[in-house]
């Protein structure tokens, strides 16, 4: 009864919102203040931020520069060491490590992957990137481990740590670089600090999670064995949580690497990320592909090696004897000595001769040009079709998009009437059928498509999001969403936020729909699932930056390229969660449905999808998070919006602009995150 009343109240709220929106739009010429947030109301937050930062830099600058100088010393050693080491030695040691953790296959893969870097002549750049990772991962691991442990033991620490980690992970990656750049000055140390900061959260989370998940009986057994508190921690809890902690190290490493690559946009590091970026900017796609492959291979090797360690089962028998226990160390030492000696006689083991390098960039460029010319029409029509029929209507509305030039006809008044009538009829019919929510959705979408997201009055957009937040999570969430959007308005980045929302929104909707369909197929078909899995793995381990390359190559700069890049990154969680959710349904339920005479289609729609709903919602949540993360990186290929503002702030050293845009993105990410999580909790009881 109460639920019914609540529902009715919500319906009226929606109708009122739609009505008001239409009223404002009808009188939009005289209601400027509602259409575009007046400049006079915008707070000079950018200046405040800059002024504040100036003070901080003036007060603490010498301290941070000292830290920076101190850190650059060991940094220099590691760089020097990796540069000095004969390539043959580095490759052999990495291959040996791969063999030790996994076996022949991975050792071979590692050897080939690293040899590729030598072969095409990117060895020094690769080693520079690697030295940043080698330096930042141990620090991030140690820091993360201790913070995670503190959060495990103290509820108060957890209350601070957990939201801080949330924020660190939702702030767009570029925004990290800005304050660090200002505080620590230019140089590789910026990349180092940024990657430590970015890589700590997964370690913290996994440490806390691992410690929490230790079997309570194991803890009791430790207590009964008479373990003192420190024995309890180091000999019972940590070893029992080790697998999760190792998983944390794996994720930390991938995060650190991804940040190292992104940090190279500030330049001056001569690393592999810079190589990709600079060649891409010069439209030397052959070169950027070759360098991009290096990044992809490095990511894969790092991931495979650490993931293998994390998932490895304890061996069959505990090893015994000096040789059995230390054989890999003994071999490593032997190998080092042997190769160091050999490289004195055969200098090519130390420095790979340039004459032996293979650098097929020109060939790739020729081939690419050929493909682009040959399929120019197809490429162009794909791009224009999606622009005219999907992207522009959402962005600027049919009102602006439909013209003889784009759609082949003009939007006459009678067509407008027809559109409105059709939408009204459809919504009315759905309402009449009792599907009120769908009717409201149709009405809302009709308005959105006609006027466009960026041309809707700002109070309406706010109203829609606040109402959604209210439905999902009650008053508190609605209030939070409202305050977040008020911030966007007051600091004057609302238009950019809408541009981001439009691009990200389309990408998320498409990723989620496509990903769910693929996930359903994968859950039904083993072969398909087996094919899909390595592709997903690769897309997910890749630093997102690399994903831009192929799309920029074919479609050049612009929104459409960004859209495709975002989809290619954000689709992975949608697929994963859908497959996982659909596979993890108890087989008994499916059997019961079959026994009741349900067809395959009915089982899918009426049993499996509803039961998988919480997982699907989590997938949507992750899709949104991935989409927003990628949106910032897509700013590199020339999108408008918050991501671009962060990037501009970074390249101009304008802390205020960059930081405000960064906070704006974090706000959007957090609102989206809380809302989807609240919905996910809401559909949970239905699945039980």
């Amino acid at each position, binding site marked *: 009864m109460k639920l019914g009343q609540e529902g009715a109240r919500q319906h009226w709220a929606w109708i009122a919102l739609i009505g008001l929106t239409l009223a404002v739009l009808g009188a939009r010429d005289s209601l400027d203040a509602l259409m575009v947030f007046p400049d006079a109301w915008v707070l000079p937050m950018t200046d405040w931020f800059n002024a504040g930062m100036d003070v901080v830099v003036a007060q603490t600058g010498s301290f941070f520069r000292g830290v920076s100088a101190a850190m650059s010393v060991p940094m220099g050693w590691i760089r020097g060491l990796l540069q000095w080491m004969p390539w043959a030695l580095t490759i052999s040691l990495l291959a040996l490590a791969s063999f030790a953790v996994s076996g022949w296959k991975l050792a071979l893969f590692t050897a080939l992957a690293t040899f590729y870097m030598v072969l095409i002549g990117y060895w020094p750049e690769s080693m520079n990137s690697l030295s940043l990772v080698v330096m930042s991962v141990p620090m991030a691991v140690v820091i993360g481990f201790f913070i995670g442990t503190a959060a495990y033991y103290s509820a108060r620490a957890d209350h601070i740590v957990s939201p801080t980690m949330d924020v660190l992970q939702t702030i767009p990656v570029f925004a990290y670089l800005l304050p660090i750049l200002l505080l620590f000055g230019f140089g590789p140390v910026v990349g180092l600090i940024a990657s430590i900061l970015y890589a700590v959260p997964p370690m913290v989370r996994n440490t806390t999670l691992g410690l929490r998940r230790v079997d309570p009986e194991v803890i009791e057994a430790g207590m009964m*064995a008479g373990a003192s508190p420190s*024995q309890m921690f180091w000999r019972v809890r940590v070893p029992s949580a080790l697998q999760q902690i190792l998983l944390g190290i794996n994720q930390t490493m991938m995060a650190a690497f991804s940040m190292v690559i992104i940090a190279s946009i500030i330049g001056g590091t001569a690393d592999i990320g810079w190589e990709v970026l600079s060649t891409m900017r010069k439209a030397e796609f052959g070169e950027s592909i070759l360098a991009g492959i290096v990044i992809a291979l490095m990511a894969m090797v790092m991931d495979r090696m650490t993931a293998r360690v994390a998932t490895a089962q304890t061996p*069959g028998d505990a090893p015994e004897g000096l040789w059995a226990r230390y054989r890999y160390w003994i071999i490593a030492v032997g190998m080092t000595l042997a190769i160091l000696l050999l490289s004195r006689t055969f200098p090519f083991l130390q420095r790979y001769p340039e004459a032996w390098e293979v650098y097929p960039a020109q060939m790739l460029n020729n081939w690419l040009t050929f493909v682009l010319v040959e399929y120019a029409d197809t490429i162009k029509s794909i791009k224009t079709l999606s622009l005219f029929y999907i992207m522009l209507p959402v962005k600027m509305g049919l009102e602006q998009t439909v013209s003889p030039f784009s759609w082949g006809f003009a939007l006459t008044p009678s067509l407008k009437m027809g559109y409105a009538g059709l939408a009204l009829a459809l919504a009315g019919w759905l309402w009449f059928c009792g599907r009120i929510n769908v009717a409201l959705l149709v009405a809302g979408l009709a308005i959105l498509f006609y006027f466009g997201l960026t041309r809707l009055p700002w109070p309406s957009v706010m109203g829609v999001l606040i109402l959604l937040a209210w439905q999902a999570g009650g008053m508190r969430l609605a209030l939070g969403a409202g305050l977040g959007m008020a911030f966007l308005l007051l600091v004057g980045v609302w238009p950019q936020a809408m541009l981001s929302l439009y691009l990200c929104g389309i990408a998320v909707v498409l990723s989620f729909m496509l990903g769910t369909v693929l996930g359903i197929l994968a859950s039904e078909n083993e072969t398909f699932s087996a094919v899909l899995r390595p592709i997903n793995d690769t897309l997910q381990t890749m630093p997102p930056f690399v994903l831009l390359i192929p799309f920029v190559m074919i479609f050049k700069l612009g929104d459409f390229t960004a859209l495709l890049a975002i989809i290619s990154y954000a689709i992975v969680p949608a697929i994963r969660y859908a497959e996982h959710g659909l596979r993890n349904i108890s087989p008994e339920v499916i059997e019961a449905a079959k026994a009741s005479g349900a067809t395959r289609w009915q089982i899918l729609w009426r049993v499996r999808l509803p039961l998988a709903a919480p997982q699907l919602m989590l997938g949507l949540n992750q899709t949104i998070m991935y989409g927003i993360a990628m949106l910032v990186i897509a700013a590199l290929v020339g999108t408008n919006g918050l991501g671009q503002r962060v990037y501009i702030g970074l390249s101009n050293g304008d802390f205020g602009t960059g930081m405000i845009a960064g906070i704006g993105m974090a706000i959007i990410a957090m609102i989206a995150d809380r809302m989807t999580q609240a919905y996910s909790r809401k559909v949970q009881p239905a699945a039980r």
Partner: protein
Amino acid sequence: MTKSHPGAADGSDIRLSCRNIWKVYGKNPERYFSKDEDVADPATLVRRIRDDGAIPAAADVSFDLRVGEIFVIMGLSGSGKSTVVRCLSRLVEPTHGRITLNGDDLLAKSAKEMIKIRRHKIGMVFQNFGLMPHLSVYDNVAFPLSLQGESKADIRAQVDNVIDLVGLRGREKSYPHQLSGGQQQRVGIARSLAVDPDLWLLDEPFSALDPLIRRQMQDEFLRIQNDLQKSIVFITHDFLEALRVADRMMIMRGGQVVQTGTPAELITNPVNDYVAEFTNDVPLARVLTAAEVADAKGQRDDGLKRVAAETPVETLLPMLAEHPDGLIAESDGAPLGLVTAQSVIAALARHSGQSADTIGQAGT
């Protein structure tokens, strides 16, 4: 079924004494108790605690464990038996009450002293084994010893000893995940015995095992106990298991003690319907002994074969077939009465009739 155990019942042979133990979960549970006074009316207090929305997980639990005795605490899930056994080693801190081990007040010990006591005096076996997944069988068993920093040779001697005792020789290098449930619990048993404890706590040790393995492990357990003569608190939810291993047992419900006594006392003399319902399914022939089916007024012909008082009816029946005139039940040489087919049937009828009555009462 009075198994013999050493020592007399005069308090000097009490290993563990547990007096009026309470464990209350809720907001500041101490307010229900005053420090030195015992609770006058436990039943009323339990109701008050529940009304406040707190949970009395253990309420006024008292028992004594004699040296060399197997004391079983039996109850269904949520009856408080696991809470009680954890109070005994202070894995769970009792809210109120007294516990003494070898006459020593356990609740007065500091955390450091408690660690010492756990290292040397108490061993515990867990329902899901509680093995360290990252340690081999040998290292798991050696774990309590290695925490004390004993020398490797000492550890090896003690570990070898208990590994032989539980029959794990040859599996020392395996890891827990490579073992079956029964084998894993052998590791758990070996680990708990490695320090040669005075008090041995077993928390549903066989409940996670298959019925056949469970039976086998119970036999093993009794064999080990026959050798070691430990003082044991054994937790189970399985009434038949309790009957098999118990010298004495205590039935719990809702945190409170329902009845304490020997298995035979519980069966022949249940205090209420709750206890009686457990005894319904019990195969009487296995529980009733010669003493209980003997007819004391029967004619005592000294020519008849003599049987020990604790012989179960199960064993008597084939003997009766061979000696149709009857048998004499005796205790320490003194005859107790005449056992005939007639007296056995009468006793069985008496006991099952009683059960049938209690069912009838429960239905109304």
